[in-house]
């Protein structure tokens, strides 16, 4: 075989493998997607073709599932978490980026480390504390813990963005007479806005999908969407059609958000280790 024929051969294999990988990646998602539109009867059979129904979507919002409440909880918890996390993280990120601080490395390592501590390790003290403070099963409680989870990502991502903003404009402004705070508000924030937006979305996704804390710290009132999934157990087993519909409601907003910020995903998750 000549060099060129060999190349063609490998190209074809490459394409086949990519297609197979794509199929593997998308099948579970697709299947759930289809199941959400199946009736109670259809879902228990391996059918590819069926008459779709939107019934499941309305059912999950009715009692006793009340997915609507969970949806509201999730939105509020994730939203408020981001609302608090981003400003706090931005201040810290700016400082880490522009200044030399004592104990800087230790602080950064501590922030990094919190991400790697398993949630189970810190959940138990939280449970005890929340029980004593009456914060169990409240949205506020959830917001507080989500703040913890989300903060390291937010700081690293925003710091990365601020690092990328050239110093020139800030320095020119300070030469012209601005104070540091004015510089942050008038110059850095507008320029970092896309980065803040991206970090905000990333944190929203994390808070939205958060599971363990919500599982342990909520019961009835503050239950979020992912935990709501556990509700769909019927007497005969799981109600898959309803489960799938709920699953889509959880997934879809996240797909949209993830696609919006897809360029920065890798940087966010590895916290700057890989660009």
């Amino acid at each position, binding site marked *: 075989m*000549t*060099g*060129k*024929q060999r190349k063609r051969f490998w190209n074809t294999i490459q394409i086949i493998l990519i297609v197979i990988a794509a199929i593997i990646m998308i099948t579970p998602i697709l299947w759930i997607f289809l199941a959400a539109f199946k009736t109670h009867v259809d879902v228990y059979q391996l059918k590819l073709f069926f008459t779709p129904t939107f019934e499941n979507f309305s059912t999950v919002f009715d009692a006793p599932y009340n997915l609507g409440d969970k949806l509201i909880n999730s939105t509020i918890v994730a939203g408020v978490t981001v609302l608090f996390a981003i400003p706090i993280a931005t201040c810290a990120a700016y400082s880490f980026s522009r200044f030399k601080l004592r104990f800087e490395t230790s602080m950064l390592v501590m922030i990094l480390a919190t991400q790697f501590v398993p949630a189970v390790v810190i959940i138990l003290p939280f449970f005890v504390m929340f029980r004593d403070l009456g914060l169990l099963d409240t949205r506020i409680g959830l917001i507080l813990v989500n703040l913890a989870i989300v903060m390291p990502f937010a700081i690293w991502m925003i710091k990365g963005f601020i690092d990328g903003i050239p110093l020139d404009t800030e320095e020119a402004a300070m030469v012209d007479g601005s104070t540091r705070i004015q510089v942050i508000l008038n110059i850095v924030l507008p320029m970092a806005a896309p980065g803040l937006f991206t970090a905000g979305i990333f944190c929203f996704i994390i808070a939205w999908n958060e599971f363990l804390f919500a599982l342990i710290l909520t019961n009835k009132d503050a239950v979020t969407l992912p935990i709501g999934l556990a509700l769909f157990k019927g007497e005969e087993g799981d109600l898959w059609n309803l489960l799938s519909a709920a699953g889509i409601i959880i997934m879809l907003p996240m797909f949209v958000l993830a696609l919006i910020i897809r360029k920065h995903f890798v940087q966010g998750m590895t916290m700057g280790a890989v660009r």
Partner: protein
Amino acid sequence: MAQVLLKNITKRWGDFVGVDNQSLEVKDKEFLVLLGPSGCGKTTTMRMIAGLEEPTSGEVWIGDRVVNDDLPKDRDIAMVFQNYGLYPHMTIYDNIAYPLKVRGTPKADIKPRVEKAAEQVELTEFLQRKPKALSGGQRQRVALARAIVRKPRVFLMDEPLSNLDAKLRVTMRAELKHLSRQLQVTTVYVTHDQIEAMTLADRVAVMEKGVIQQLGTPDEIYNDPENLFVAGFIGSPAMNLINGSVRDGYFITTGGTQLVKVGGGDRGSVVLGVRAEDVDIHNAGQGDIDVPVYAYENTGESVMLTVQFGKQRIIAKGDRHLRKEMDDVVGLIVNPEHLYLFDPETGERIRQD
């Protein structure tokens, strides 16, 4: 025999044509330079010779066979990259040894050959270091050593000197020239620096927009340019190009000044080319025309006078002891022996006997 032949080579990406149906022959043992500005197609042409780029149409011959279907590794070539392409995780020794190792050269043969190559580029004491410990010039020599450690049929060099600082570039040029004369291998060399082309090449192919503008020896492209592009590209400072017309055998600028005798028939619109060193500077009144000085530059080795007449400016080269100020008036004599006429529409050289 290792000549390189390109037959009607074209490279197209979508609508953009990088190389447009060009043919070129590089003779055995010849040092051919592909010269041109960025985007002219010179690097693409070389990469097609190397096999790193596939021609959209046309044939590439190395030696006596068509190599279009051959992978780079089977074409028996060696290449020096612009950024050197050194393997950062290997020592210099391993870098140079790699082409031999990967082609199955017996271990006993590798060591002496690597050491000889290192000696030829004067890098023997660096063999155990890694690329990041070396300076730019040293890395460049490693890339060279890696290319010469085998005896390939063709050397390809992609702007190897462009990442070096100016002084180093001059020294390396001499070393490259010396090395290439020693090794006697067919070489294709790509650069945008016309001095490199002039000093290193047996022949130069000047390229622009995917087309070879002129193929000739350095002497030919300097003293006998075929079109406006080559005339303006070669030579530093660039050749003076003056717009005007020819009447009664004399060249008249668009502003009406009669400049010099050129002979030949009348022409309505023509471009006169004359090099700075062919414009002599005299005191006011002692030349063919008087013009004011626009700028005076003393390079130490000579003096460059930019003078203004009408709307056009030309550069004249003068003795390094000449002293003039802005707005001084000087007299110019244009040497009629080294003049070129070009058609402004086509850019082609007008040759008259």
